[in-house]
């Protein structure tokens, strides 16, 4: 096949819940070859597993189906390809829903690809029997300690299965759990024919993927010098212009808001970083200390020099388990004496609960006074003596759902039985919600076989 000079890959969804306007504008406001979309957070897989246990057709990102319905004409007309991890725990169900949208709109001959094989939830006992420890990477605790409370388990697959689906002609590729940078690395492998041993190229693609994976966080969103960011309401989402040699430019569509410069890109490189010399992934390791950046015109940052090395023999597993319950509620306390009254309110709640036999140890309860230096606690420059109003935020957690719910019943009564000026109870009683615990682990790669399927819709 002929290789292109430049491939344009845009990321239109940085996380589950990101703006639906972003991908719509990316396909309408400038040239794009690939649109990538990230819908999965760690907690998402567990929620989707639960949805699927109630309904075998559920368990994927329904936002994605609504988005495709909205932008399908542009995708077809401009031949834009889509790579999304919208499959959650049910890529096949997601594919069926997308096929239905395509059929409804009367398009024929569109190829859909899915990547499966990341879901190891039903294979835990098989894997431990085979000698895989699956211990918690952070705490070294054995998986037996949470075995009967597990709610999901998925490995982070790499980019090569995505490239395979594209090689087979898929215009829309739907995956389950994979790495976020893999969504953009897959198209690069497909377009340029990069191989598993091309560590520096794969590392360059991984770095590019890391820069765009949180959407507008590299184009001026969540930026220290926020006053310098023009037209944030119309902020442009990021676009990679990748070349076959692994050098690339980060930019955004002309005429959009936001800013791309060395600082906005460096901000995102720092996001969720551990050791900058060893960014680990399933396809390679990347050395972030090798990255070179320079401004290459307005809202364009050129990146080169990226060095990489071989991947480890393991996939990372992200498992989740039921870890008790929590409830959190808020009330607004007006001045005068807002903070003093808020502290009295908190004391009243704990005393009333204790008088009814419900005591919550310090490790299972929290009080925050929002407006009086809570998120920056202990940092002198942030202290303010007498705020005009306070949001009192209280929460408890623990293994006993009834005890957590009992707390929720004692917050709202403060409105009539506490100090004056207590309001903002429209949300009603806070109720217990499940805490989803994370279980990061390692699994040797030979135990996992990614499976790629490509089908043609409406022939």
């Amino acid at each position, binding site marked *: 096949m002929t290789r292109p000079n430049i491939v344009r890959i845009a990321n239109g969804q940085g996380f589950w819940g990101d703006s639906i306007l972003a991908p719509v504008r990316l396909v309408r406001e400038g040239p794009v070859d690939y649109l990538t979309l990230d819908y999965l957070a*760690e907690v998402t897989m567990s929620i989707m597993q639960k949805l699927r246990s109630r309904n075998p057709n559920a368990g994927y990102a329904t936002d994605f189906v609504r988005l495709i319905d909205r932008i399908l004409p542009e995708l077809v007309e401009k031949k834009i390809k889509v790579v999304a991890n919208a499959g959650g725990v049910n890529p096949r169900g997601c594919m069926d829903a997308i096929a239905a949208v395509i059929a409804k709109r009367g398009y024929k001959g569109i190829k859909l690809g899915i990547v499966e094989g990341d879901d190891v939830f039903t294979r835990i006992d098989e894997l431990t029997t085979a000698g895989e420890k699956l211990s918690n990477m952070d705490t070294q605790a054995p998986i037996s300690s949470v075995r009967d409370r597990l709610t999901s388990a998925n490995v982070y697959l790499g980019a090569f299965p995505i490239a395979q689906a594209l090689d087979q002609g898929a215009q829309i590729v739907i995956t389950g759990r994979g790495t976020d940078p893999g969504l953009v690395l897959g198209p690069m492998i497909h377009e340029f024919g990069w191989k598993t041993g091309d560590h520096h190229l794969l590392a360059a693609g991984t770095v590019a993927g890391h820069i765009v994976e949180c959407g507008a966080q590299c184009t001026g969103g969540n930026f220290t010098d926020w006053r310098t960011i023009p037209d944030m309401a119309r902020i442009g989402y990021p676009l990679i212009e990748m070349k076959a040699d692994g050098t690339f430019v980060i930019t955004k569509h002309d005429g959009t808001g936001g800013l791309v410069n060395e600082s906005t890109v460096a901000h995102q490189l720092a996001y969720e970083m551990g050791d900058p010399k060893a960014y680990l992934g399933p396809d390679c390791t990347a050395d972030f200390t090798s990255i070179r950046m320079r401004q290459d015109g307005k809202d364009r940052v050129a990146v080169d020099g990226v060095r990489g090395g071989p991947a480890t023999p393991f996939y990372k597993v992200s498992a989740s388990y039921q870890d008790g319950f929590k409830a959190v509620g808020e009330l607004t306390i007006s001045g005068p004496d807002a903070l003093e009254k808020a502290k009295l309110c908190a004391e009243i709640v704990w005393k009333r609960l204790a008088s009814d036999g419900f005591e919550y140890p310090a490790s299972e309860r929290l009080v925050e006074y929002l407006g009086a230096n809570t998120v920056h606690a202990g940092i002198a420059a942030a202290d303010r003596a007498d705020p005009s109003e306070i949001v009192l935020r209280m929460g408890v957690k623990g293994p006993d759902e009834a005890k957590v719910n009992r707390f929720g019943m004692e917050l709202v009564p403060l409105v009539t039985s506490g100090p004056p000026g207590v309001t903002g109870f429209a949300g009603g009683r806070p109720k217990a919600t499940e805490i989803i*615990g994370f279980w990061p682990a390692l699994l040797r790669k030979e135990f996992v076989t990614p499976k790629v399927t490509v089908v043609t819709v409406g022939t």
Partner: protein
Amino acid sequence: MTKVPLSRIACARSGDKGEGSNVGVLARSDAAYAFLVEHLTAERVRQHMSAINVGAVKRYEAPNLRLLNFLLEDSLGGGGSASLKTDAQGKTHGLAVLRMELDVPEALLTKG
């Protein structure tokens, strides 16, 4: 020397890392980076953030990005969905570090 907030000579971004958070401090100039490598130690950040982070603090350097990356190992009240904190993901920890007051040579403040 002039006492200024760290934000005068650096930017920052933060986010969650398991039960902790990372704060990437990005120096605004090469001179500021050299100054911060010497003075913005892991211990200094640990003390500044001690009401938020009850764990250790580890520092990594990436001079090509003028970046000092700090890992705050227990700063999220349990992390993930187990946390009762408003900022369960450490989104505001970068700005918290930038509020640190530092004695800085005037030469670092003349530009930017």
